[in-house]
């Protein structure tokens, strides 16, 4: 068989994690560089996947690998990627180096702590980040439900330690209190997601039971199940299907997070350091929305369309609710967290609108939101680390002392409010159009969020960056080279994907088409058939021709 690219891509960061963790306590800097090296290697592999991937090719999944793993339960080690997975893997692999760079000093040993041979926070921090990357990547690749579930849950362990173990020294009430809050947030994160995971586990077992009952041999393979269903060999009773769907969806909704299951996110993002917060919202949570797209819809088409109205309303609520709460936040990180809740609402909206625009938009949204939030959150992290406070009220006039920081912060903010010309606009507008074309009312209401987004972003910017310079920030240094290296590429990417998202859309469209065909939904047709609809790229030249001949 061919070179197991997917396995290797997941394995490299795992190996990196082990290697980093194994380094002796004294070699802190070495650990950092090692972690960075491995993350870059992963990025290279991810890009290789993107190049080896042929968007037009037949069959939903490519670069597939399949080995029997636990034959007794029909569990197989099945990997495969479609366009969506490729995009998200690329996003993950892209963000991790920046996360590592941004967190370069987050896990340094405090000066006042006595040296201890066993105590190696730095190694642990970067090893955990790499471990998370490995698990996220493989859960993007897994096409076997059980395999996916395994890593979907295992992800929680390193995340738990990242949240609970490493906080930015901006507690406000002293380190003790901060640590207490951190661990509380971490526990909440863990329990919340575990609860979701357990319900999903029940559903997974149920799925196995159903397949075993109807196909003779039980299976977890997504493709087998989809094909069996298409061939009519497998038809799950309506009630069962709905229960199973809810079981899966609950876990993903917690992870996503969808209102009203969102309350763990602000705590987790607020208490953890900025890079970890980015890890949570930009990387780990994407697994939830991705899984909705890959598993919920494809395994349980009827149930999905049955639940669509409710889910759409929930998504709509979290869109507006998140934005409104973001407006009222006093803590920069929590504000960004609530903004993310609003954005995840958009993603879910797009997924369940069941239109090609909606789902492509949702996928693009996952990528773009990852990048934009990373940009905003990391800059916010730099800001917080300088001033040692997360409260918006403690800032003011930063723009005068640190113009570059303020500028990058503004760009990140503009991306968050999805300004046209920046990447998020494309995805958000696609989601809105996709939703509107099937559910006009919801589309219109969701559009209101663009004003709220502008509100919370601009209020944040105004309170922190503009106005008279406060004494506390007067001595604040501008972005250092390392920080610029982190932010500049992200911003460049935001602009590029905003101006020329075609590579991404070409990657995603076929996969979305396949999903829709599985769900058996078609885009609603326009009311009026305009002859010239078949596309600008053909109409453009046409018009030009006629002009030319007119000129003659």
């Amino acid at each position, binding site marked *: 068989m061919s070179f197991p690219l997917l396995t290797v891509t997941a394995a490299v960061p795992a190996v990196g994690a082990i290697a980093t963790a194994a380094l002796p306590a004294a070699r802190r800097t070495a650990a950092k560089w090692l972690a960075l090296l491995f993350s870059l290697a992963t990025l290279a592999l991810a890009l290789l996947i993107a190049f080896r991937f042929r968007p037009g090719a037949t069959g939903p999944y490519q670069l597939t690998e399949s080995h029997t793993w636990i034959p007794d339960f029909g569990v197989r080690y099945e990997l495969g990627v479609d366009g969506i997975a490729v995009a998200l893997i690329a996003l993950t692999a892209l963000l991790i180096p920046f996360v590592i760079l941004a967190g370069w000093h987050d896990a340094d040993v405090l000066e006042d702590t006595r040296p201890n041979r066993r105590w190696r926070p730095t190694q642990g921090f970067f090893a955990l980040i790499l471990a998370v990357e490995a698990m996220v990547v493989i859960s993007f690749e897994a096409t076997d439900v059980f395999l996916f579930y395994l890593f979907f849950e295992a992800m929680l362990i390193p995340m738990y330690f990242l949240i609970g173990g490493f906080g930015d020294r901006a507690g406000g009430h002293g380190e003790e209190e901060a640590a207490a809050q951190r661990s509380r947030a971490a526990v909440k994160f863990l329990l919340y997601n575990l609860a979701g995971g357990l319900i999903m586990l029940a559903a997974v077992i149920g799925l196995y039971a159903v397949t075993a009952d109807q196909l003779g041999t039980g299976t977890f393979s997504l493709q087998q199940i989809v094909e069996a269903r298409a061939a009519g060999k497998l038809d799950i009773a309506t009630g069962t299907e709905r229960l199973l769907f809810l079981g899966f969806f609950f876990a993903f909704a917690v992870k996503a997070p969808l209102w009203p299951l969102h309350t763990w996110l602000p705590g987790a993002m607020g208490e953890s350091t900025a890079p970890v917060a980015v890890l949570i919202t930009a990387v780990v949570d994407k697994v939830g929305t991705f899984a909705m797209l890959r598993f919920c819809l494809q395994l349980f088409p009827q149930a999905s369309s049955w639940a669509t109205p409710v889910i759409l309303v929930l998504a709509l609520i979290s869109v507006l609710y998140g934005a*409104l709460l973001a407006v009222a936040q006093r803590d920069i990180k929590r504000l960004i967290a609530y903004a993310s809740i609003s954005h995840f609402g958009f993603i879910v909206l797009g997924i369940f609108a069941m239109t090609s625009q909606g789902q492509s938009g949702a996928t693009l949204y996952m990528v773009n939101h990852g990048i934009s939030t990373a940009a905003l959150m990391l800059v916010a992290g730099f800001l917080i680390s300088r001033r040692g406070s997360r409260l918006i009220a403690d800032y003011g006039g930063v723009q005068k002392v640190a113009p570059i920081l303020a500028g990058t912060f503004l760009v990140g903010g503009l991306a968050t409010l999805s300004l046209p010309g920046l990447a998020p606009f494309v995805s958000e*507008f*696609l989601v809105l159009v996709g939703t509107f074309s099937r559910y006009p009312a919801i589309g219109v209401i969701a559009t209101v969020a663009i004003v709220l987004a*502008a509100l919370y972003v601009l209020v944040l910017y105004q309170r922190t960056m503009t106005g008279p310079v406060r004494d506390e920030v007067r001595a604040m240094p501008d972005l250092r080279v390392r920080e610029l290296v982190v932010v500049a590429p992200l911003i460049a990417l935001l602009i590029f994907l905003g101006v020329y998202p*075609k590579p991404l859309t070409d990657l995603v469209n076929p996969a979305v088409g396949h999903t829709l065909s599985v769900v058996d939904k078609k885009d609603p047709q326009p*009311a*009026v058939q*305009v002859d010239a609809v078949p596309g600008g790229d053909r109409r453009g030249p046409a018009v030009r021709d006629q002009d030319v001949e007119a000129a003659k």
Partner: protein
Amino acid sequence: MENLIALLVAAPLVGAALLLCGGKRLDRAGHWIGTLLAVASFAVAAVLFADMLGKAAGHRALHQHLFSWIPVGGFRADVAFQLDQLSMTFVLLITGVGSLIHIYSIGYMEHDERRRRFFGYLNLFLAAMLLLVLADNYLLLYVGWEGVGLASYLLIGFWQHKPSAATAAKKAFLVNRVGDIGLSIAIMVMFTTFGTFAFGPVLAATGDTGEGRLTAIGLMLLLAACGKSAQVPLQSWLGDAMEGPTPVSALIHAATMVTAGVYLITRSGAIFNAAPTAQLAVVVVGAVTLLFGAIVGCAKDDIKKALAGSTMSQIGYMILAAGLGPIGYAFAIMHLVTHGFFKAGLFLGAGSVMHGMNDEVDMRRYGGLRSYMPITFVTFGLGYLAIIGFPGLSGFFSKDKIIEAAFAKGGAEGWILGAAALLGAAITAFYMTRVMLMTFFGEKRWNPAEVHPHESPKSMTIPMIVLAVGSVFAGGLFSIDDAFVTWLEPVTSFAHGNSPVSATAVTAATIVVLLAGVGVAWLKYGRKPVPVAAPRGSVLTRAARRDLLQDDFNHIVFVRGGEQLTRTLVQLDHSLVDGAVNGTAASMGGLSGLLRRLQTGFVRSYAVQMLGGAAVLVAATLLMRSV
């Protein structure tokens, strides 16, 4: 030829990129780069214009397709430009006035250490505005639309250390966003209706579409226009926008950006023509705004705010004209262009005055400046004559035509609109005369010890002169055998309205009300001295000073209400949503606390439990057997 179109946008864009990312090493040359690129863009525009003039009227439209932007399913957005007469007009206005104002800013911003960034923003604005008028589909137009919003946000808040400036900038952006809701919804409806949102197919297909959808689109577009062009009810941001540097007010908030709404409506003429309801809404908004702005303009003592009010009302005229359909489009654009000249000139004049008066903006502290800054006085005066529509100057031709067209709407509407327009003209004459008198005539109301009024440097006066020339002759040139109308006709389709009153009568009426306005103003401010401390004034005056209480309304309803809402939501989130979760956790804890009692750690109590279990088992087996 069409490949040059991209150049129009590219030049200022490159400038912006250079200046904003260039860093300090560009500080010394920055403003020159910016100006150069603006002028370059104007040159390209001129070339294209000449080329266009060389073609037959029907085939002047150029189209350039750069690349396919967002292709998803039936959803195809392209980055493609379309340069027809309408766009051409705007391109010339934007690049022309833009270049002039770049030059002006070189002098005006001389002492600002962030001048490089200022020019970067100006270039960014030019690029966005050109994108707006050159786009060949609504989505790309949307990009430009937001782009100018961003540029105006950055420029209004340019002096960010002033909280008022920052707040004003935020307000402007937010209100514009409200308008953007309209634009995006309009695009969505278009997509669901026509499956596309490119000008060509959409405007071509309006014929065979239900009026309902078209009305929806029209109203949504109107909402967008209101946001961008500061029309009632979204006008509140324009006054505060005057916090920005004066060149910004001249370029963005007088000449170009605020007129984007007019462009949008004119561009979508086909839709409005097919949706009379939407059209009616447009004219109503226009008429209301032109009076609203005029009244506000009368009460302001801040020279820039007064001019802002006048801008509002002049755009009201344009919207009104655009709402009249084919009989009005051409005149709307024509007034837009002439207004671009004289209002920019007026603002630059105001800037020049402030420049000489240590950035004093209160007209009650001016007076008798005509001898100190003659050039400013002359150019400002010409602009003034133009705006009040003094016969022979550009304002006269364009505004007169609009009033005519308003009457030509026919029926009761016609009379009402015409009357409103006439009234507006009168008030315009009044408040502009007031500004003129308070600034340049009368006795000095400033302290010679502190301020030393002086004429501005060449770099500032030259643009003013050019604009003054424009505002004198533009209207006349356009009206020579309706050159302008015929130029635009292929795009906007022109129809001669049959007015119930003859053109001459309208003109006469216009002149009469004009003189009346001027007279009243002279009686009030010219004959007797103006008090430095503003008198209390009538209820209307006091209301007008506060923008007719519209701001207060917004504050109470939206700001306060919003704060209340969010605060309650935060409470709910904490107590209800999160409370449920924490409650579950707490109850679990309590339960386990109870069970914990069993674990005494004493072997014998465990033994008791074991024996109990054994007993239960035995009992169970016995029961099993007995059953």
